[in-house]
């Protein structure tokens, strides 16, 4: 009984160590494909939230852009995802056979009087693999 529990605990700890390592390594790792990325938001005259992002790669990529844009609202002391925008709905957030891509979209917030921001997941892929990162804009009051 005790031996079995010990085995289970050791196995769990080993799995946790393996899973935790990439989480720490992710921010430390440089990218072989991505040079830079940026994201920013603003409130438009139409009361929409405007989201702009850019990603610059070191060479021409097969695919480059944003895999998703998460619109977050600051509510109850934490950021709540309000909407996730993907390339299925907005193909213009991705491009092919270029080394740099940027675009902006506008989003109508569900609420007014709240802070909003955008978390943009960008990526660049070629025949040898894919590099990805996430960039968060500063917030803006809508």
């Amino acid at each position, binding site marked *: *009984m005790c031996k*079995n*529990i010990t085995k*289970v*605990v050791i196995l*769990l*700890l080993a799995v*946790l160590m393996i*899973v*935790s390592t990439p*989480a*720490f390594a992710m*921010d*430390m790792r*440089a*990218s*072989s*494909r*991505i*040079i*830079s*990325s*940026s*994201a*920013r938001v*603003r409130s438009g*005259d139409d009361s*929409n939230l*405007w989201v*702009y992002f*850019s990603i*610059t790669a*070191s*060479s*021409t990529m097969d695919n480059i852009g944003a895999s998703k844009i*998460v619109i977050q609202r600051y509510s109850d002391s*934490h*950021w*709540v*995802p*309000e*909407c*996730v*925008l993907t390339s299925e*709905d*907005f193909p*213009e957030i991705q491009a092919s056979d270029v*080394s*740099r891509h*940027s*675009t*902006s*979209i*506008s*989003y*109508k917030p*569900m609420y007014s009087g709240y802070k909003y921001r955008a978390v943009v997941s960008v990526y660049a892929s070629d025949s040898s693999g894919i590099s990805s*990162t996430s*960039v968060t804009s*500063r917030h803006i009051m809508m």
Partner: protein
Amino acid sequence: MKNKMSKQCGNPSNHPGGGDVFTIMLDAMSVEELTDGLNVILENMTEENYDSSLIDAYLAALDRKDPIPQISDSKSSLSDFYQKTSQILPVHKERPAIFCHRLWYIGSIGLIASVVVICLMSSMVVAQAAGLDVFGALAHWTDKVFSLGTIQSIGADDEKMVATEGVNPECNKPNYTSLQEALDEYNIAEFSEPTWFPEEYTLEDVKIDCWPNDGALISIVATYSDGTKPLYVTIEHSPDESYAQMEKTDAPIETFVVNGITVYLLENISNNSAAWATENYEFYISGSVEKQVLEQIVLSAYAHS
């Protein structure tokens, strides 16, 4: 009991008069009379005149008059008890063993589950401490939607979804012949197009991202190329704070100063970057060239001043 009757009815050895007459006389007596008579006999009987057949005759007569209910033996009584109780509560002989085994099994599962929960919570705390918003992502809800993960829907109100507009096309004139032309158009005097690039690099295009009627976003990107690898010169309007994230290795950042401005040289895996800022703009030059080459390019941009 039946054997006892047979014995009493068989051969009374010491009774006054004939056995059959005495038996008939006893049978004629009531139960109380027989009980009283037996008590009198027992009180008066001594060791000398003890007559067991007389006592047996009284007992037999009492048994005939008021028989004692049949009493089973202990084994049959126990069996009868089990049979009756099993009709109410089915009893299995192996139940105690199974019950103990189940208790042990449930205890083991509970212990393992507790260990798993503790480990998971510990890892979540570590991840949270490392900067990942684990607890914030466990459960979220709005007025219309609940999710244990991230909410990926705003509910049924599709009208509030999204209207898309690209970067204002008016920002991008199709044919900028030089970076300086774009800088001049946007009245950017803090920086001039570099006059020196490695020989093989030539201007490919100049693109401008901006928001319509708004100076909040002005991003000018001039791309130079040697035919295979691009080299970017980027100017971004940033009146308040930086927006860009530059990828880099953990190699030490080098700096040099030009025109009183500190320029940072960053090293990435397959490219390097130079970065600096003025009051309203950020400047980046990035490409697959050595850092010394980047420094030369920057210096050429400020050579006139």
